[in-house]
């Protein structure tokens, strides 16, 4: 190879050291953050860059930042030339287009100096609890028609000067957010993470020397690129297309078209979302960095999920979308609630590549639901926010049924019923898998999930953030799709079907019944092992009637 200042053993050590630093930075951030998104959902990232702004290593945290991290330092350098940096500085930004597609994601970039020279940068991104705007959490979807309603927008600004926060800028930020102390605390956590990253990167330079590191990272880029190209080359050339949709962004509206064309040309891949709908006047648009993040995630899933992310490995992959389209909107398109759509970006690429890479494809996910209920808790007289993360089944795979009850694409833990009931005036009446909801097939999709939430205070505001109410998760290779999702108000009384993004007022005693979709199946139903059907019936995943109707197997109960 060309850059042989380091022997292969030293190079192995160098690479491992960089990855280890991103990991350690992340662990610092996670433990001291207030933001639930950071500490529970790993909704943060860490990265190390060279002085040209090229990404050397990124921590394996949320996939949501894969699209922004590689470019963030170059953006920062455009605003602050290299010679303007001093040790301990920190530049902050949260712009949707420059960042990861919505304002709550705060990026903090800090320079690394070694022996008086600027040798690189460290960066971390954390999802802040609130950045102002129309609703708590800054992710309201319906009724938010432009980004100006979504809170404070920060273009790159030096918020930390030689280790100290600039109190004027902090005053400006804190005046625009609902929980200034938490934002302040989380920015401290971000500063700590970068501080640790700087020390560790300096130690790497100390051990391997400036020239050793420089040669080493060129080698890392080249080898990562070569590996990525080799993996892509295994996929036959061609244009592979798939279409699905997202529920409409307003009651009575048309579904949002999600169309992808994946073009494989030898060792490069272009993922193009141009044929999708235009950008919408609701806060779920996917800015290009967000689209790219989940497209990257999908490409990795179909090549090597553990492929290191750096400047080299991303070179052979292009993610594009027509300007002004849903997947490459133009500012001030609102985007706070874009987390609702990440699953679909993955799924259409999965659908497009499935015929080529059958072993790696899976049926559609149950999607997920992210309802928020807010109001006054009569028990305390204080405001409360009930924030929930509801996950159900995975689609079936080439070799097994879909996994039951697991976070799709997004990765976080659920919140225990007992914790929710202790801190909010609500009662959960059911939390159970839905029988017969998993798509039938040679392998069955995971089941949908029902969660019934009863209101136990006078009045609350509900914002739903779900999907798959209009089109069910698809099955593959002859399998059935999963059952449709539904959101039903008062299922045991005068039941009302709600829109998947509905916002409305609920009263004491109202019961919101969330029914997540079932995962899609895989392979023809006729190839289902009868023993698996019997096992499913005995476990209650499938009813005896459905066993007969969908699988043709009679089971006496």
């Amino acid at each position, binding site marked *: 190879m060309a850059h042989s200042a380091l*022997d292969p053993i030293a190079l192995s050590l160098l690479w491992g050291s960089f990855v280890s630093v991103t990991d350690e930075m992340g662990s610092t951030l996670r433990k001291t953050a207030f933001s639930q998104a950071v500490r529970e959902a790993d909704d943060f990232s860490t990265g190390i860059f060279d002085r040209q702004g090229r990404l050397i290593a990124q921590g394996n945290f949320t996939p949501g930042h894969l699209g922004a991290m590689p470019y963030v330092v170059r953006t920062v350098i455009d605003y602050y030339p290299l010679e303007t940096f001093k040790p301990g500085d920190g530049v902050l930004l949260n712009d949707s287009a420059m960042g990861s597609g919505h304002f709550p994601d705060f990026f903090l970039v800090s320079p690394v100096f070694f022996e008086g020279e600027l040798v690189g940068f460290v960066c971390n991104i954390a999802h802040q609890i609130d950045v102002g705007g129309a609703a708590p959490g800054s992710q309201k979807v319906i009724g938010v028609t432009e980004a100006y309603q979504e809170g404070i927008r920060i273009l790159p600004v030096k918020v930390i000067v030689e280790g100290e926060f600039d109190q004027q800028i902090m005053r400006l930020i804190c005046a625009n957010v609902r929980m200034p102390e938490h934002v302040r605390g989380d920015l401290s956590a971000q500063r700590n993470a970068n501080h640790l990253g700087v020390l560790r990167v300096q130690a790497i330079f100390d051990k391997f020397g400036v020239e050793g590191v420089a040669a080493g990272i060129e080698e890392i880029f080249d080898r990562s690129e070569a590996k990525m190209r080799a993996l892509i080359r295994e996929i036959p050339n061609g244009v592979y297309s798939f279409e699905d949709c997202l529920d409409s962004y307003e009651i009575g509206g048309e579904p949002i078209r999600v169309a992808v064309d994946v073009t494989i040309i030898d060792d490069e891949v272009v993922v193009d979302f141009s044929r999708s709908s235009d950008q919408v006047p609701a806060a779920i648009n996917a800015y290009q960095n967000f689209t790219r993040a989940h497209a990257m995630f999908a490409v990795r899933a179909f090549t090597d999920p553990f492929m290191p992310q750096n400047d080299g490995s991303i070179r052979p992959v292009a993610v594009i979308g027509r300007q002004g389209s849903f997947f490459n909107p133009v500012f001030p398109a609102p985007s706070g609630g874009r987390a609702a759509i990440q699953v679909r970006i993955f799924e259409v690429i999965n659908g497009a590549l499935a015929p080529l890479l059958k072993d790696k494809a899976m049926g559609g996910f149950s999607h997920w639901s992210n309802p928020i209920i807010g109001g006054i808790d009569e028990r305390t007289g204080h405001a409360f926010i009930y924030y929930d993360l509801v996950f159900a089944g995975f689609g079936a795979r080439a070799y097994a049924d879909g996994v039951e009850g697991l976070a799709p694409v997004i990765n976080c833990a659920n919140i225990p019923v007992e914790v929710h009931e202790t801190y909010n005036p609500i009662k959960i009446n059911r939390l159970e898998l839905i029988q017969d909801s998993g798509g039938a097939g040679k392998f069955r999709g995971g089941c949908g999930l029902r969660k019934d939430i009863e209101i136990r205070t006078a009045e609350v505001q509900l914002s739903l953030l779900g999907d798959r109410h209009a089109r069910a998760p698809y099955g593959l290779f002859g399998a059935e799709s999963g059952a449709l999702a539904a959101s039903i108000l008062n299922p045991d009384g005068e039941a009302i079907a709600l829109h998947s993004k509905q916002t409305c007022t609920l009263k004491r005693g109202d019961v919101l019944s969330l029914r997540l979709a079932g995962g899609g199946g895989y392979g023809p139903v006729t190839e289902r092992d009868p023993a698996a059907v019997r096992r499913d019936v005995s476990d209650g995943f499938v009813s005896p009637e459905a066993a007969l109707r969908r699988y043709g197997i009679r089971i006496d109960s």
Partner: protein
Amino acid sequence: MYRVTFDIGGTFTDFVLEHADTGERRFAKVLSTHHEPSKAVLQGIRTLLDEAGIEAGQVEAVLHATTVATNAIIERKGSRTALLTTRGFRDVLLLGRQKRYETFDLHLDKPKPLIARRDIHEVSERVLFDGSVEQPLDIAELDTLLEALQAAGYLSVAVCLLHAYVNPVHERAIARRIAERGSKMSVTLSSVISPRIREYERTSTTVADAYIKPIVRRYVDELGAKLRDAGIAAPLAIIQSNGGLITPQLAIDKPINIVESGPAAGVLMCAAIGKQEDADHVLSFDMGGTTAKLGAIERGEPAILSTFEVDQLRYKPGSGLPLNISAIELLEIGAGGGSIAHLDMGLLKIGPESAGSSPGPICYGNGGELPTVTDANLTLGYLDPGFFNGGAMALQDQRAAEGIRRHIAKPLGVGVEQAAWGIHTLANANMERATRIVSVERGRDPRQYTMVAFGGAGPLHAVRLAMAVGIPRVIVPVGAGVGSAIGLLVAEPRLDYSISKPLILADGVREAVAALLENLRAQAVDDIRKLARADLEHRYFVNARYLGQGSELRVAVAISADSAADLAATRRNFAAAYRRTYGYDEGDAPVEATDWHLTVTRDGRTAARAQAQLRTESIVHGRRAYFPESGGYIDTPVFRRSALRTGQRVEGPAIIEEAESTTVLPPGTTAALSTAGNLVIEILGGAGDGA
């Protein structure tokens, strides 16, 4: 009189026989007999007694560690168990916490649950978060269900109802009903085994306990009977995951507490060594064939966590089954002597795949073909092919070198010695990251710590590992190969209890806190009676966080002169712990307590001074070993540890050998045998990059 300890491990059962007065010890190692563990136990004890010329009646205590509970869980070979839960919540156990333990792997599977959905049954009842009963338990329906469970042949029943940690009335009613029916099914209630908030973790704990209960009972009964048959009338004690000893009856009552039995004892050994050598802060480093385990000891006390995860996949947090038990803090990673070296993108990587003990490293000659860390250590001259395991096993050094050449050196275009050195160094780099997690990331400054190294491969890597993270001193104890069995000798009784109650630590909650402490004391009363010990202290702890945060720190509840909790002092304890861990505190921000704990124990006994065995042989030979600082392969002095005199100094580069392990001293380090017989290694010039 004598004390016998044994640690039933995966491959070997290790034994120690100690003279209660002189502290003189004998060791033995016997292959474990899994289908009937007592067989190996009796064989080992018999051997030791015969060698020492002692009668069975002279044994006054038998202390042991066992994998019986863990194995039943890992192999999913527990008893047929049913779970009863609140209507509407049948799927809590199957759903789990739903987070993928590998974010980037969508093809992963969740851990296989101990029971299937068909074993989970709902009962009509509902208790609310404040303990009020919204819907009474339907007894008629329960009876029908119990009838069906008995008919179906279930041996054990787990009961976990929503909010039972606040009000256990319905769980108790179910237990009563099962007893009234004269059922032989064993019963575990979540409100007894783990009265803590969070239904999934509590259910998981309750089910696991129920699942192993019949097996642990059978095991304890059988072992006790066999020992009595062999003439040993001394009481049998079992060590729990928290490092505390309990009686067989307590193990039967709450078997879940013994899942991590053996490793806990190893950490106790390190704590005792720390006391012998006046080390306040100790990191324990145990490296064996497939994994390395790291733990921490503060002022003689092993760090304790109030949760534990059993049967993890790929050593990933979140991949195993969570248990709400008190357990000694250990970080386990896939780095051992058997870890396989391989190439990825032309870069060298070690593990986590391991050749294990079969086929094992290439040099074992048992069919292993892929180079391992042990093969590299042999090639580097650190291991003596003729003195491995005291010479019991001849190592094939030529084949090891050839394997490294073929799989690593040639593809990389480097020499065999450079490749072997790379394997050794990268294995250290993996453990360095783990050591940082246990030390720096948890607020422990490595410069204040002493590392105690044991396990077959520990002393080979310990000194360089310590140098890399800035730990100034390493100790290799006597009998490092039977560390857990030695640890049992210093174990004390210990019982842990917990209860959940979220409270802001402020003056208004005094009475609530007093009631909580009383509740904890009441939980312990029965068990203390069964232990029949009068000399135990009560110590209280609390998990706390700043209001709004998600992770807690465990700190001592300060108790004032009138035996009540001192909340202001407890808040100060929390702030100090927070500063230690994260470098700053949040001043007057409200502190929220979540879980409250009681520990009933006493201070660990000081290890008896081991007799430095005096031998007259003075074997010092040499061999070629690799030290890059000294220019590569150099003639290196090799000492037999048994030949070292107390106080004698050995300067690195050097190698010190004993039957079960080999200590490598790089340049810039010196070793000396302490009066207690421990090998104490000082790193000159202190630390590397450290904290």
